[in-house]
């Protein structure tokens, strides 16, 4: 069938909508649809006007790298994991927009530096060898599966891209560090950062957990981190 891809474009100065027609099966992913449009020798919109290639980010094309996050049919998702048929409205129209909580570079490309900067500002690293306990090994695996795609920040009612609140992704990275770390000044500093950059601002909507493409059990990780880092129910004291 013929799909219509209605794309929010931004050329560095001007933002506008442009719609492209594409014939293909509904099983095509949004990522593949973008590739097919860009592969055309001369890209024209549905009114036949010449258009610049569509800028968007991708790397793995199989839901492993988080590069292709965008707003698809009004929902933040990964373009390589969404078939057109799941994204189209009743008339076969698929709208694509860049994530809105991050500065737009061009078209569907955004600058997610804010997310990685937060990880560094929160000092999310280990000062000594990691202590991995059997009881939390699986949770570490889950936390470390984060793609840094930013979808959780896009849906978060508290995250604006400004101010101290860093959202779910840095908070689960904080779990990974805090639960691996040995007691001491650096772990205390991470606890303070967690409180300031996450706990104090979180309204617990848990929209992050619903949107996460790799189904990280965000709520469980946050409950554990809050208990330990905020309420000091640390494993040593817990026995």
């Amino acid at each position, binding site marked *: 069938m013929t799909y219509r891809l209605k794309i929010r474009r931004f050329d560095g100065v001007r933002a506008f909508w442009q719609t492209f027609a594409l014939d293909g099966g509904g099983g095509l992913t949004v990522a593949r649809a973008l590739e097919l449009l860009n*592969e055309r020798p001369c890209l024209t919109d549905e009114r036949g006007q010449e258009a610049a290639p569509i800028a968007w980010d991708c790397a793995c094309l*199989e839901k492993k*790298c988080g590069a292709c996050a965008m707003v698809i049919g009004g929902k933040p998702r990964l373009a390589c994991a969404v*078939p057109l048929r799941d994204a189209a409205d009743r008339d076969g129209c698929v709208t694509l927009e860049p994530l809105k909580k991050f500065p737009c570079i061009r078209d569907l490309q955004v600058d997610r530096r804010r997310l990685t900067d937060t*990880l560094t500002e929160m000092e999310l690293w280990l000062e000594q060898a990691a202590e991995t306990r*059997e009881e939390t090994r*699986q949770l570490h695996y889950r936390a470390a*599966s984060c793609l840094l795609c930013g979808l959780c920040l896009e849906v978060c009612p508290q995250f604006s891209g400004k101010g101290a609140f860093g959202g779910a992704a840095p908070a689960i990275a904080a779990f*990974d560090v805090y639960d691996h770390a040995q007691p001491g000044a650096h772990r205390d500093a991470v606890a303070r950062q967690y409180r300031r950059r996450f706990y104090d601002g979180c309204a617990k909507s848990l929209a992050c957990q619903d949107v996460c493409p790799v189904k990280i059990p965000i709520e469980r990780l946050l409950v554990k981190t809050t208990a330990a880092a905020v309420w000091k129910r640390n494993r040593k004291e817990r026995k």
Partner: protein
Amino acid sequence: MRRVVIIGAGIAAMSAALTLAEQGWKSVLVSPMISERAQSVMAEGGINAALDTMGEGDSVRAHFCDTMAAGCGLADPNAVADLTAHGPETVRALASLGVPFHTTASGDITLRPFGGQKKRRTAFVRSSTGRQIVTALARACRREEKAGRIVRLSHHWLQQILTAEGRCTGCIVRDGRMGRFDVLAGPVLLASGGLNGLFGKTTGSVQNTGAATALAYAVGAACGNLEMIQYHPTTVPISGKRVLISEAARGEGGRLFLRRGGEKWYFMEEKYPELKNLMPRDVVSWEIEQVCRETGEDRAWLDLTGVDPAVFDERLEDLRAFCLEFLHLDPQKEPVPVYPGIHYFMGGVYVDRAHRSTLPGLYAAGECACQYHGANRLGGNSLLGAVYGGRRAAETLLRDDGPPAPPPDAQARWTAALREIENRPGRVSCRAAEGRMNEAMNDCLGIRRCEEELAAGAKTLADLSTSLAAGYDPSAGAPEQYLLERRLILARAMVDSARARRESRGAQYRTDYPKRDDGAFQKTTLARWRAGKTEITFADIPKEETP
């Protein structure tokens, strides 16, 4: 503070940067995206080391022997000895950085069986080992970033390697967002991954275009064994690309079969009673291609229905989730249709045991380097090669003298090179040329190769180079066109390497030379770009030094 420019931000790059930072050196990591989006995150099945935690009497020597045997005599035995000897400490160091490897009941690291290995030797985190290692290394790098010892130039691409008097003196990088060029002085370590982009789509990342290796080749660094391309036996097509079904699936009991006369034919088990479905990848891929051709089928089947459900839950959960989401099938209930696909490049920038390229001042580690794997890589050895190789290259950099400063007119000469392209009278299409390059490469460098097809491929590539040189593509821009022209040169070197190796060994199967010929070809194929021409020679494999 001494400084190294590292091209790439994957596992090899981070491993090198951390080693340099330990000694107070500074690294600049140049990459189009952050580490968490490098191809390394896609690695699934695991990382090899003779940890011998499964009570099978494994040893470093056994790991060495399996690696050398899989490489069909082309790997450097001294480099492989270094790699395998450092395997156990490398994996334990990753565990200390917080990689949550699967553990045995007694709390030690569990090892799973992997292709071509007689002992269980592959440490893993479910089937997303690469992502877990990247997360841990990126976390360690963050500390050094804060201290200023690691600087990241994300959304930057390598644009040119600078040389003076036969030495690499630095490079020019392009900010992909602002379009700006910067000269970075200092020794350069390539950690830019495989040559995927010469073929279009592989099982890996589209960020690995092969441009960095092509730039090194074009300024005189030799490339080794370029013809050795690993086809992974079990890949499946999804929307526009082929995706891997990890070897872990066979490691945990998956069986390959074909339908023959209504019966299931477990051809690997019949033909190779010892290692069965876990023969090295070159053998399994060749067999799948062969039996499919014999029976007229277009795919084989991977049967996972007999795998213990507990193993699925604990170790293959990610694989099941992938099959359900992308293939709409439950691998615990029905077999998965598979066929070989391009997956890994054993060849690349030719380096010595210490990761020096033939161009002084230029180093290479990880998948972009021709090191450790010979004619065929063992699954699990490339993650080890990337972590250990990155570290080893950094140790060499710490010892070597730094290069002289880049020529003062480097920026001006670069601008002139771009102008030359922009001023060409004709108009060309880089997109179309790239598509034709990909097609030609896939056509002539399949699992089975022959002179006729290779010669046709070489001709297509040469014609493409000639036609590009006559014009300019304003929509791609001169910097992109400059890279494509060099990627075409590297593509031709790959085809010429396959033509020159008139024998069959490891990943290279020649229908016109089906036998292995140790006398003439137990050597490394060396490609060099000299005076506008590819020159192919064969270099001896170093003799094994007695430990």
